[in-house]
Structures are given as structure tokens and as C-alpha cells.
């Protein structure tokens, strides 16, 4: 009974958080929703006797990664509200829905094909040993090589991050088709807004949105001027 309640609460947190990430117009809200999901999953880890991983999940994900993302959001001041009611790429949203539902259906189908039961050989686990001990032993015996490789990966990631984030000196990347593509995107945006406006939302609201978008574009241009 306790397990059921725990699962229900945690799963609800996970799903709400996930939906929040996807559907929040404000990226800061999305990041906070992500924290909800991460906590929910940590709870589910505990429920499945992975106490150490639950702790790592909270510390690394909620404590480090999300904070890092928020840092970037705040530092760069890019917490602009994203207009989710328009989609410049025609058909993208419908295709995305179909495909993600397809993935879901197929995965669940795959599960159902096994009758939700374990099909492979089941190992013997010494339940008297703490999970962190077992994990450590596994990491430093069976997965030693992979473990060593991850250290190399981290070094490379750090070097790469520094190289990328340094203020570029001298030449900058020139995008030859930038103006053309921006014009194209703006056109698609306008078309998408026209479509969204025609779909049922009030006329005035649509016009307002368009106006807002125009103002946003102007502001963007001004901001770009300033950076230059």
C-alpha cells in the first residue's frame, strides 16, 4: 500500500514535471518543472532499492545540472517567453506527436509482448550487502575500462567547453545565408501565426500576437545592433 502511494505521487510528479518542461512558455518555469521530474525519479530510485543512485540523482541533476542551466538562462538573459502557439516548420508538430506516440506505443507493445515479465536469466543478489558496495564493486571490476574512458571523456568535455565558451578573438563564424534564412523564417513565422490566428483564436488576439512578434523582432534587431 505504501509502495502504491509512493509510486502514484512520484509518477505524478514526474509526469507533471515532464509536461511542464515541454509546455512551459517560459524557460525558467521549464527548468523548475524539470527539477520536479528529477525528484520524482529519485524517489522511484529509492523505491527500487537504488539508494545511492537516488542521492546522486538529486545531487548531480537537481543540484548541478539544472542549476547550471538556470545559470546560463539568467546570465545571458534569454528567459524570453517562447510563443508555443506557432510553429514555423510546417507539419513539424503533427509529425512529432505521431512519432512520439509511435515510440510510446511500440515500447509498451514490446513490453506487452513479454507479458510484463522477465524473460532473461535472473541473477543472484546478496541482499545483505549495501547497494553502494555492490555498485562500487561492479564499477571497478566489470566496468573498469568504461569507467576509465569516462574520465577521458570528462577531460575532453572540459577542454571543449573552455574552447567553445572563450570569447572569440579575431575572426568570427560567418553565416553566408543568414539574412536569407532569417527572412525565410520570419515569413514562415508570419504564415504560422496567420494559420494559428485563423484556427479559432480571436482575430484581435492574433493581430496582437503579430504585433508583439514584430515588436520582438525590432527589439531583437536593436539588441543585435548593440552587441555589434
Amino acid at each position: 500500500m505504501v509502495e502504491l502511494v509512493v509510486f502514484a505521487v512520484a509518477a505524478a510528479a514526474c509526469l507533471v514535471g515532464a509536461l511542464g518542461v515541454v509546455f512551459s512558455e517560459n524557460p525558467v518555469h521549464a527548468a523548475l518543472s524539470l527539477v520536479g521530474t528529477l525528484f520524482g525519479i529519485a524517489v522511484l530510485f529509492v523505491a527500487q532499492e537504488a539508494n545511492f543512485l537516488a542521492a546522486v540523482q538529486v545531487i548531480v541533476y537537481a543540484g548541478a545540472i539544472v542549476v547550471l542551466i538556470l545559470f546560463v538562462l539568467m546570465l545571458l538573459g534569454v528567459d524570453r517567453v517562447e510563443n508555443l502557439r506557432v510553429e514555423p516548420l510546417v507539419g513539424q508538430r503533427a509529425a512529432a506527436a505521431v512519432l512520439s506516440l509511435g515510440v510510446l506505443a511500440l515500447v509498451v507493445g514490446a513490453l506487452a509482448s513479454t507479458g510484463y515479465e522477465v524473460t532473461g536469466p535472473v541473477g543472484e543478489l546478496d541482499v545483505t550487502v549495501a547497494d553502494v558496495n555492490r555498485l562500487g564493486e561492479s564499477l571497478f571490476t566489470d566496468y573498469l575500462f568504461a569507467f576509465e574512458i569516462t574520465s577521458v571523456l570528462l577531460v575532453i568535455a572540459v577542454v571543449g567547453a573552455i574552447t567553445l565558451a572563450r570569447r572569440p578573438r579575431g575572426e568570427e563564424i560567418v553565416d553566408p545565408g543568414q539574412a536569407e534564412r532569417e527572412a525565410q523564417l520570419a515569413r514562415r513565422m508570419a504564415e504560422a501565426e496567420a494559420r494559428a490566428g485563423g484556427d479559432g483564436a480571436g482575430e484581435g488576439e492574433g493581430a496582437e500576437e503579430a504585433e508583439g512578434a514584430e515588436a520582438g523582432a525590432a527589439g531583437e534587431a536593436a539588441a543585435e545592433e548593440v552587441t555589434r
Partner: protein
Amino acid sequence: MTDVVWLIPALPLAGFLVLLVAGRRLGEPGAGWLATAACGGSFLATLVVYAGLLGEEEHSRSSVTTLFEWMPVGDLQVDVGFLADPLSIAMALFITGVGTLIHLYSIGYMHGDADFPKFFVYLNLFVFSMLLLVLGSNLLVTFVGWEGVGLCSYLLISFWFTDEANASAGKKAFVTNRVGDWGFLLAIFLAFATLGTVDYGELAAGAGELAGVTATAIALLLFLGATGKSAQIPLYIWLPDAMAGPTPVSALIHAATMVTGGVFLMTRVNPILAAGYDWAPDVIAWVGVVTAFVAATIAVAQNDIKKVLAYSTISQLGYMFLAVGVGAYVAAVFHMITHAFFKALLFLGSGSVIHGMGGEQDMRRMGGLRKVMPVTAATFIVGWLAIAGVPPFSGFFSKDEILLYAWGSGGAQGRALWAIGLVTALLTAYYMSRQVFMVFFGEPRWDEPVAASAGAAAADGGEAGDGTAGEAGHAEVRPHESPWQMTVPLVVLAVLSAVGEVINLPFTDDLHFLERWLHPVVGANEAHIDVATGTKWALAVGAAVLALVGILVAAAVYLRRRVRAVEPSVLAHAWYYDEAITRFAGGPGTRFFEAVAWFDAHVVDGAVNGVAALVRTGGRRLRAVQSGFVRSYALGISAGVVVLLGYFIARLYV
């Protein structure tokens, strides 16, 4: 001592390289002397090898000196090696010997030419290539030499390339020879495909195992190559035009050495020829004798002093092929050597005349030159007697040997070959006498304008004008004797022409030096004739009498002016052979190749371009997939995941 054989071609090569780098600095006459020394040194090296071979037992007079592996490709093992055997050394001896004399002569002849050093660069390169040709131990090395001499021939014919006629004469020679080279190459391929080797020694050893048809094919393909290089029907047309080059070139390349390359090749591969069908040698004999006859008839009506000699050369080469065809390899080589002497002499003599006449080549403007050019005239007369077949000069003996073998080959065919050869001998005596009388006897005509009536023939001869003509106007021609560098070779060659027959006198077997010398190479396949001594004498006397008849008739026509000259324009135009080829190539030939070009442009290129267009169109379509939008890519990945998952799950239920 035979292992110094590499020195023989190395010296001209060194001379060529040095002259190539420092020729301009050496200038005139230093470059000429250096080239002459290189060629002379090569002659000395040949003598050393010759002495070495003499010291060996007869059956071991053959040594291969391998310099390095050239192409070790699977079964194909080709070395760069030199074969020193009686045949190659005999060839090398007269190539370097006559070559040295002609180098010396050229110093005088090319005097004052702006490109004096360049001439000797080519000349040394030629000698090197020619030696490679004769000394090569396998078909491929010979082929390299073969192409090398072809290249030098081209370069030297077009030496005065600023004149369009000279340039196109060089191109003509080059292109015509390509036809023959095609045959040569096919023969090499065929030899390798069937025998797995291109080495002469192994070819000779393996020839017996060849199927008759294969041996015949190889022999005739090589003969096709030989007809190109040695100017036989149907590929002889380039040699008359090749006279556009400087006269020493005509003497060295287009009379004494390169054009005999074909005869040499056929002699070299005599085991293969013997392994083929019986009719293969007959083909060669007939091609030779018909060429000899046709060329002789053409020579009767030429007015250009060098063209007469050019057709004469073709004719004499025809004799050599006749000899090869009837199996008289010794006679072929014998005639090759004597011909090298007297034809080089005649060419050099004509060069001396042209030099003295300030570039004039038309015999109708000459006459009475024996008084102003005594040495040239005397030596030229010796050459004339030699080629006309007057005993005891060398040409009589070598030509008589060939005719004897033709007679002795038996049957109606042998008689026919002999009869045509004899008539050709008569014609030879006639046209050579005509030339001598027109040039050296009679009244001086160099101040007279050419009779307008002779228009067409004059144009024919005048076109190949010798570049040295230059400033010397026709009105002020003052013939003079040539400098000593030119007369010395003339005298030497005249002596050789007069006594060259001593290498193979027919009287007793002891005097058959050349035959015994060549025995290891050709002995096995040499024809053995059975002709009574009396018949031999009768044939010889008959030939000599005919030669005298030819001379007397020519004297009556051109010296005494008793009989009107018979010079039909069909002969002056060389039987319209060139015109026919031109018309054929220009008409059906051009149309055929236009059709080929159309096929190439539309079908072959169409296929290639079609594939390219397909790829390009496909690429242009596929380009749209790379929109640059990350989210589209994510969509693609998701689609892939769905497809893969669907596939795996579907597999569970199927």
C-alpha cells in the same frame, strides 16, 4: 670482354646528356666534336666486344648482360639487358662506324646553323636508341629503342621545323610508324600470352612449341612493325618525305641504320618465322620484291636528288626483305651492311652537292659538277657503281647473293621473285646512272631557270627544300668543294663501298666470313640452296651485264641525249599512292571517324554524362533533406527509431 657491352649504348647516352645540359655552351664546333667522340668511343667499345666474341667458341658467342630488373610483374619478368651476339655486334659495328663518320660529316654540313648543338643532341640520342634496338636482350628493350629511333627520326626530319613542309613530313613519318608499332606491340603481347616471355633467348628456345598459327601471327605482326620502320609497302610513304630533314640525317637514319631495323628484327626472330606456316616467309618475300620494283620505277622519274635516293633506299630495303623471305638471312645482313656503306656514301655525296649548290636539290639545275667538286664526284661515282651492281664493287656481290637465293628457293615462285629482282636491278642501274649523269656530267645548268614544262614534278621535289638554301639566290650559285670534315667520311665510305664485299665473298667457303660469323644466330633457319656453280656464274654474269645495260641506256638518254627521256608523270607522282591515301583518308576515312566521334559524343559521353546528371539531380533533391534545422533532424531520428522498433517487434510476431 663482352661484359663491357653496356658501354656501347652508354657512351652516346652520356654524350646526349652532356650535350643536353651544356650543348649551347659548347657551341660550334665543340658540341659536334663531343658527339663524334661519343659515337667513336662507342665504336671502339663495339670493337672490344667484337674481339671478345671472336675469342669465344662459336656456340658460346652469345652473352646477355643484365643491367637491372625492369618489370617483375607476376609471370612477366622483363630485364634491361644487352645481348651481345654475332648479329647484334655486326649491327652495332656498322651503326657506330657509319654513325661516327656521319657525325664527323655533320660538323661540316651543319656549319653555321643556329641550332648546331641541338642537332648533335638528337644525333647522339638517335645512336643510343638504335644501339638499344639492336642490343636489347628482349622484345621490350628493342621496342624502347624502336620508339626512340622513331622519336629521333621525327625530331630530325622536322629539324628545320619553321618550314611547314618539314614539320608535316616529320608528323607523317611519326604517324605512319605508329601503324607499324601497333603491330609490333600486338606481337609482344601475343608472344607473352603464348610463351610467357619476351626474351629473345627464351623465344628462340620456345618457338618450336608454338602453334603454327600463333607463330605466323607473331611473325606477321612483327613484319607489320618492320614495314613501318623499314618503309615497305604499304607503309613506305613516309620515307620520301623524310628527306625534308638535314642530309646527314637522311644518310644515317633513313638509309644506313634505322630503316634497317625492320630487317634486323625479322632476322632476330627467325626461329619464330621458321615455326610459322610456310606462306608467312613468302608474304615477306613478295612484299619485299614488289616494294623493290615499285620504288625503283618511281625513282626513275624523280628530279629531287634526295628523293631519288629515298626511293632507291626503299627499293634496296625491299631486296633485304626478299632475302629474309627466302631464308637468306646472311644475304640480308650482308646487303644491309654494304647498303649502309654505299647508301650513306650516296646521301652524304648528295649532301655535299646540296651544300656546294647552296641548298639546291633539283637535279635539272645541276650538271658538270665533277669539275668543281672532284672528291664528291669521285666518291659518288664509286657509290653509284656499287649500288648499280657493277663488279667488283660491294653492291654487286650482296645483291647477287640475294638474287641467287631467290632463284634457288625453287619453283615458279622462286623464278618469279628472281625475275622481278633482276628487273629491279636493271632499273636501279638505270636511275642511279641517270642521277649521276644529270648531276656530275653534261653541261652546267645551275644558272638556267628550270623549264616551266616540268612544273608538277618540280613542285614535288622543291617542296622538300633543304633549309640551308637561305640567302643563296639561284642566280649567284657558285658550286664549290666541301670542307675536309665532309670529304673525309666520303672517302672512307667510298673505300668501304668498293671493298665491303670482302666480308662475304662467294668464291670459296673460306671467304664466307659473315656467314660463319652469323651462323650461331641464323644458321639453324638459313635456307640451303642447291645451285650448280655454272648456274651461279651465269646468274652473276647476267646480273652484271644487265647492270651495264642499265647504265648504257641511261647514258644514251641523259648523257648523249640520243633518246628522249621517259619520265611518265604517274611515276613522278609515285603511282599516285599518296594521293589515293589522302583521298581515302579525306573521304570515307573522315566520314568513318566522324561516325566514331558521333558515337563517342552521343553514346559514350551520353552514358557518362547521364550518370553524372542522375547523380547531380539526385543530389539536388536530397539536398533539401539537409535543411539545417536541428529539429527536422530530430524528427528524422525519431522516425528511424519508430521504424527500427516496429521492425523488431514485427519480427517477434512473424
